[in-house]
């Protein structure tokens, strides 16, 4: 009984921590996006609110809170209300299986507790859960487009669903290569197959510079491009192509409902960056042996060091996302579909075949 209470309290604290972290991450990314786009265009960007304009995203969200929440008369009220909740909820749910750092222990002897950084980093369906959740994320955008009863919203929603389904295939297939390599490097033989999909296992198997980007460069490229498409960001931002579709699927949204889509978009970016880091860039692994810091496995300081290493990698990937957005022009719709089905999918399949053959020859 008391064990259950402990687990509940622990999970609650972790959930609050992760929720706060996602919201802060979204705010920071909005700030980064505006500053970096400004720098690329020879401007300064927001630099008035707070030091260096750091409080600008909070001012924006506060403004959105105060705005009137308009619902079109012809809209389907129920789905119109649910859509942003699905979008944001899915973004947050994905973070529950992401390991933010290795475990640390509290207490000594019999009362010692292993506490993992992350709500359920060891769950053995880890990556399947993420694929499932991103698929549900399509519903948020498609429902938003459909329920608004507006032609531009509908087009945006339809584009988004077609695009996300097309790229989810190559995304899922590119991960199979990672799983094969990860299983080859697995350290604990007894649970190699049952835990292969757990994200913490994938990270653990990348220890000591065995980062998957080295063994899976093609898989990394495919996953990166698919992540751009999955997050609806440029050059694949067709669902919200302003010149063609007014505002895309969120045309008819205002106030905090729009704010939720906004947060979900940037939260998605953080999630994708986290996934790329986990699968290809060694996750929370430090780029040097932990012994250099004079810390042993299980200490809370090592966990914090790993957490900051993870955060740094996420931020760098997110900056790369933003950088690409302000460099590459938007794809045409047929180019998008050609790339997805005629290039990405065969490449992903080829990647699996090559990885499989190479692994068979070595082992």
């Amino acid at each position: 009984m008391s064990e259950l209470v402990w687990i509940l309290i622990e999970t609650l604290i972790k959930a609050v921590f992760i929720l706060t972290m996602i919201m802060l991450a979204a705010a920071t990314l909005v700030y980064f996006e505006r500053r970096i786009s400004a720098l690329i265009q020879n401007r300064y960007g927001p630099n008035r609110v707070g030091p260096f304009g750091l409080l600008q995203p909070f001012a924006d969200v506060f403004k959105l809170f105060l705005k009137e929440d308009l619902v079109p008369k012809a809209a389907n009220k129920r789905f119109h209300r649910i859509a942003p909740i699905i979008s944001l909820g899915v973004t947050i749910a994905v973070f529950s299986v992401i390991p933010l750092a290795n475990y640390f222990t509290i207490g000594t002897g019999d009362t010692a507790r292993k506490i993992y950084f992350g709500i359920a980093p060891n769950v053995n369906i880890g990556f399947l859960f993420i694929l499932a959740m991103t698929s549900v994320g399509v519903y948020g955008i498609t429902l938003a487009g459909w329920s608004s009863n507006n032609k531009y919203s509908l087009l945006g929603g339809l584009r988004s669903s077609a695009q996300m389904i097309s790229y989810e295939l190559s995304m899922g297939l590119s991960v199979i290569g990672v799983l094969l390599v990860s299983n080859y490097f697995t350290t604990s033989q007894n649970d190699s197959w049952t835990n292969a999909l757990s994200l913490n296992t994938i990270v653990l198997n990348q220890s000591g510079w065995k980062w998957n980007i080295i063994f899976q460069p093609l898989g990394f490229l495919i996953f990166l491009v698919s992540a751009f498409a999955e997050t609806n960001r440029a050059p694949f931002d067709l669902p919200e192509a302003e010149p063609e579709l007014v505002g895309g699927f969120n045309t008819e949204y205002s106030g905090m409902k729009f704010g939720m889509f906004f947060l979900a978009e940037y939260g998605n970016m953080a999630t994708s960056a986290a996934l790329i880091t986990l699968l290809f860039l060694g996750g929370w692994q430090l780029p040097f042996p932990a012994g250099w810091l004079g810390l042993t496995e299980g200490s809370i300081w090592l966990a914090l060091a790993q957490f900051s290493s993870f955060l740094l990698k996420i931020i760098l990937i997110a900056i790369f996302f933003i950088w690409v957005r302000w460099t590459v022009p938007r794809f045409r719709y047929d180019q998008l579909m050609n790339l997805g089905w005629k290039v990405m999918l065969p490449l992903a399949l080829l990647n699996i075949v090559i990885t499989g053959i190479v692994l068979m020859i070595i082992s």
Partner: protein
Amino acid sequence: MNITKNTEAERMNFWERMYIPEIARGLGLTLNQVFKPKFTRQYPEEVWEPEGSYRGRPVLVKDETGERCVACGLCSRVCPALAIEVHASETEKDKERYPVKFEINMLRCIFCGFCEEVCPEEAIVMSKDYHLVFQSQEEAILGKDKLEVPIAKLQDRLEFLRQYR
């Protein structure tokens, strides 16, 4: 028949069709832009100082003998926006006439500078002042107290007028 084919495959070579090297080049270009100087003026801290030719808020010149205006009413007459109102009166001084009331409605003023052009005494000129903020319509009607500016502050404009008119 002199039709040349111009397909995407012919226009681009292999590496260009691969996207990736070209995207990398584009990323390099945008990265270069980040370190280039910015041209934005940080307004409240960095205020722009106009040249003498700038037509800002019209003001009345006040030299060492006092106001120059003799209340002839030409500026009021020429003003296309009917922004100026002058009421004249007599004094014992050399010039004998002076304006009792001189009002410019800044909500009407269009900064055309006709008043300045028509003034025989060089008494009304356009200043460099462009910080015009009013919180009510009454506040926007400037009386003599706000219009009169010492001549020392208007040297640039007066020099410009002498040189080009």
